[in-house]
């Protein structure tokens, strides 16, 4: 494994593939893009624990699997608890195997939050990655706690009226040694953060924005572009917290100073088509408030 600091260009990312060809992912899927880099960063001595989510599906159907590392699939609300048992068992046997939970936003913010909170509170030695496509994608885009205000889903046909749950603040309240945000659109950054997270003992968390073409209703070639627009608009801020100390990525620092208009991020997405002007205004207020809050936190340190 190369150390996170050494990686200068994307060409240095290892050539080994742990997500093989023939996944059953949708075209333009950023879940499969993200997991490809997560596993390149983690290497072969890794076990993935996956609750019900899109990743349960993209592995393919028994007896085939597109993943070249062990994947333990578990019920929707149980990933973090299952991983905490696995982590304890491997550590008891003196093994350093990376235990990575790779869960969607529903399995993290909603049904899995209790098990996750417990595992973090108990100091479980694992990495929890939430790839966030802001809805229940696997079941056909129903709202989740991660769906942003104003977004239309199959269960919020006129747009979600509630705000997105701030899972990062909830995780931060558990004081993990390491937590970060990332985006599938920035694979080099994701790679570095996964490697860094795995150097810490105890629980670490990475929240990955994963734009979903069929769910968000944009065309499949725009997956990376959507992630970049999210960052440039300040809707998604790339940062990491090491023992509570916040460092914001340079890309996001620039975006926080001069964000592109939010409409540039929302317009290509069918889910925001005809968004209620009041919801749009509230989204903008939330965005500005979040930028202010994170800027203040970083300035404090």
């Amino acid at each position, binding site marked *: 494994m190369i150390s996170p600091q050494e990686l200068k260009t994307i060409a240095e990312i290892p050539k080994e593939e742990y997500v093989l060809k023939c996944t059953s992912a949708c075209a333009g899927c950023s879940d499969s893009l993200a997991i490809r880099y997560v596993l390149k960063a983690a290497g*072969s*001595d*890794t*076990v993935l*624990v996956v609750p019900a989510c899109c990743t*349960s*599906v993209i*592995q*393919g*159907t*028994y*007896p085939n*699997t597109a*993943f*070249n*590392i*062990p*994947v*333990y*699939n*578990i*019920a929707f*609300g*149980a990933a*973090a*608890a*299952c*991983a*905490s*048992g*696995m*982590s*304890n*068992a*491997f*550590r*008891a*046997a003196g093994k350093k*195997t990376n235990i990575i939970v790779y869960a969607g936003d529903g399995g993290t913010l909603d049904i899995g939050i*209790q*098990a996750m*909170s*417990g*595992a973090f*509170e*108990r100091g479980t030695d694992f990495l929890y990655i939430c790839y966030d496509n802001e809805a229940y994608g696997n079941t056909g885009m129903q709202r989740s706690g991660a769906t942003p205000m104003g977004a239309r889903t199959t269960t919020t046909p006129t747009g979600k009226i509630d705000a997105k749950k701030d899972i990062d603040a909830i995780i931060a309240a558990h004081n993990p040694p390491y937590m970060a945000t990332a985006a599938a659109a920035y694979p080099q950054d994701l790679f570095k953060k996964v490697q860094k997270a795995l150097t810490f003992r105890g629980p670490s968390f990475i929240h990955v924005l994963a734009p979903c073409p069929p769910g968000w209703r944009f065309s499949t070639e725009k997956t990376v572009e959507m992630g970049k627009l999210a960052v440039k608009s300040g809707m998604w801020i790339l940062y990491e917290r090491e023992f509570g100390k916040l460092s914001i990525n340079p890309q996001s620092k620039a975006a926080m100073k001069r964000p592109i208009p939010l409409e540039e991020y929302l317009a290509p997405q069918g889910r925001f088509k005809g968004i209620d002007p009041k919801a749009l205004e509230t989204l903008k207020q939330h965005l500005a408030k979040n930028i202010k809050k994170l800027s203040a936190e970083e300035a404090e340190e």
Partner: protein
Amino acid sequence: MKKIATGNKAVAEAVKQVQPAVVAAYPITPQTEIVEQIAEFVSTGELKSRYIPVESEHSAMAACIGASITGIRTFTATSSHGLLYMHEMTNWAAGARLPIVMANVNRSIGPGWNIWAEHTDAMQERDTGWLQVYVSTVQEAYDATLMAFRIAEHNDVLLPVMVNLDGFSLSHIMQPLDTIEIGDFIPPMYLPHAIDPKNPAGYGGLTGPDQHFKFRWDIERSMRDSVKIIDETEKDFAGRFGRKYGFTEDYQCDDADVVVVSMGTLGKEAEVAIDLLRKEGVRAGSMRLRWFRPFPKLNLKGKEVVVIDRDYSFGFGGVLAKSIQAQHKMNVFSVIAGLGGQEVTYDDIADFIRKRRIGEEFWFGVNDHV
């Protein structure tokens, strides 16, 4: 070593003897004493397990699943609502073919809150693929817990085992306990499908109808095979340690005209009732069912049968009575008694037998008379 212990302590003593690598558990009355005792053993170093103090029973079973799939021994304990809360995960444990051992202290289910003995909690787990044994004494709680590990881990079984003991009437009563050194009675655990990064595989992913169907049959095949393994294990246990167990504990059944069938502590109460009836000249016997899954073939030919259910399946009947009726195509006198910890004495049981009405169902303490 001879000592005095509660049913809960006996279970913890057995766990200490077996030394599972991981214990994950959550407290619930009347099981709490088991996890407290285990935590105590871990803190003193007598038990070299990793103890995971999970935040729920759902997570307790999920953590046992995650630990067990690495090929190590795991244990948990629960009761009542805790068992129901982990129901999704109990199914997963059996489907994933993991030899997890769990003690369940049988307790009724709310509302209203009632913490006393009833078997309905475990009965609701009967179709999950778990083996279930019901015990009646402190010694049996200890012995059954030891044997549960060997049976679960046998490669012809590889299914989880639940050891059931009645809340309070066994979990909290003190009886003599003879603890043993098990030596090589339980071989080291070998899980053929243990997860291993050197041999990557997918577990529990998408499975089509044909394959899923085969996996279900495979569970049933192992459940059937477990009959032989249970028998072998109990015989070996008797040979080494001198205490005999079987699928049932029969008391004066051979020449009996009428047999009362029950499970758990009521089965011991029933033996006293049989002594009373025998003095009256009634040729009665008691059959205490120990293994409920796999459900054994019972030797009831030519007998009148009274079944005591400490459980109920609403809209259907007492689960044990209905199971026996279905298996033996016979009518029984079905007594529903002891729900929510209702006191049932040997006199009451003797009365059930004396005043039996074969073909009928009777709710003790609710219907006005037998």
